[in-house]
């Protein structure tokens, strides 16, 4: 599982915490033998809730490995929340949770 998401509603505000397991290699590091480690980083994170985009982020190489993102938006319990990302290697993944 590449993502963990927690979405909790309180007073009409949904607080989302998320953690994506991703190496976020900058392409500037070298391994033990001196070879460059190829770049591999998340370019785009998009979160949709109830069919509407509620969050988008353009990440780059300055973001740490296993990025942790947290944000809040106006929403309600029971809404679905879908988070997806796309990285520099063209890989994508998405996970859906229900706001609780």
């Amino acid at each position: 599982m590449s993502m963990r998401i927690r979405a909790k509603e309180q007073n009409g505000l949904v607080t989302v915490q998320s953690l994506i397991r991703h190496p976020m290699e900058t392409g500037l590091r070298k391994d033990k033998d001196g070879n460059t480690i190829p770049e591999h980083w998340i370019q785009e994170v998009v979160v949709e809730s109830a069919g509407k985009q509620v969050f988008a982020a353009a990440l780059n190489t300055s973001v740490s490995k296993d990025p942790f993102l947290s944000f809040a938006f106006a929403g309600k319990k029971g809404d679905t929340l879908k988070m997806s990302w796309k990285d520099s290697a063209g890989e994508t993944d998405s996970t859906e949770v229900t706001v609780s």
Partner: protein
Amino acid sequence: MSKSLNSALAAVLLVCAGGVQAGVLGLGSTATPEMIAGWDIDIRPDGQGLPDGEGSVADGEAIYEAQCASCHGSFGEGVGRWPVLSGGFGTLDTLDPKKTVGSYWPYASTLWDYIHRAMPYAAPQSLTDDEVYSVAAYVLYLNDIVDDDFISNRETFSKVKMPNEANFYVDNRPDVQNTRCMENCADPRQFEIVTTINGVTPTGHFKEDSGVAANHYGGATPIATAKATEVALSDAATNGKSVYDKACMACHTMGIAGAPKTGDVADWSTRIAQGMDVLHSNAINGYQGEKGVMPAKGGNMSLSDDEVRDAVLYMVESSQ
């Protein structure tokens, strides 16, 4: 006032004298099974010591959020500099190893033991057994070691296999032998400390007939062990000298740990007589001799076999 104090003291003494006595000295009392149970809370890798009880990942999530997440982070990522609990897989042999419960710990039982014994930080041992089962299950879930429908109890928990368990092994290095000299031993009164490592550790002592002591006492014998003249070296041995300077000289210059000193012809002649193959093998694979121990590659495993061979050649050529 003082009189009443005295009588009070006397009363206390009387009570003590009439108290329960334990053992020969009459001190203390025998621990009851309940007292021992209070201390005997360790959990073994095979699950021994796990109490009755049960917990689920879902229960654990609620407790974790309330009690643990403020430091360890909602996903075990660690807030600030507090300990990271999850992730780090595949990083142990990199330049930036991340030791977490999932990536490093060999046994799940440690998780139960530690949470029960020491967590939460501000109120250790405040969780019930069921709560510990739940939180431990949730931390395993954060590491993708168990699924979200995992129910943890004595039976299921002791069966959890941690991913890094196989990388732990029992240290199989031999014990160091400190064999006592029983006959024809050097007279300790004749020992001389001739140098120290960085002025800290006394090293190297010599029998009187080695020449060192005699020289020290004003005798005419020169130091027999150091060769004053430069020896003509082969190319390989010249290469070996840089390896020697890096990895071997710490012991082989002063003869620490029974190492034959470079330039000590007498000590080396018996070794050279065994043939270079034996010397190479002992230097590369390590060797436990009567007099001392040779760690494999001098303890510097980054050396190649050829480098070790060159260094041995350098010592041999310098000592004959």
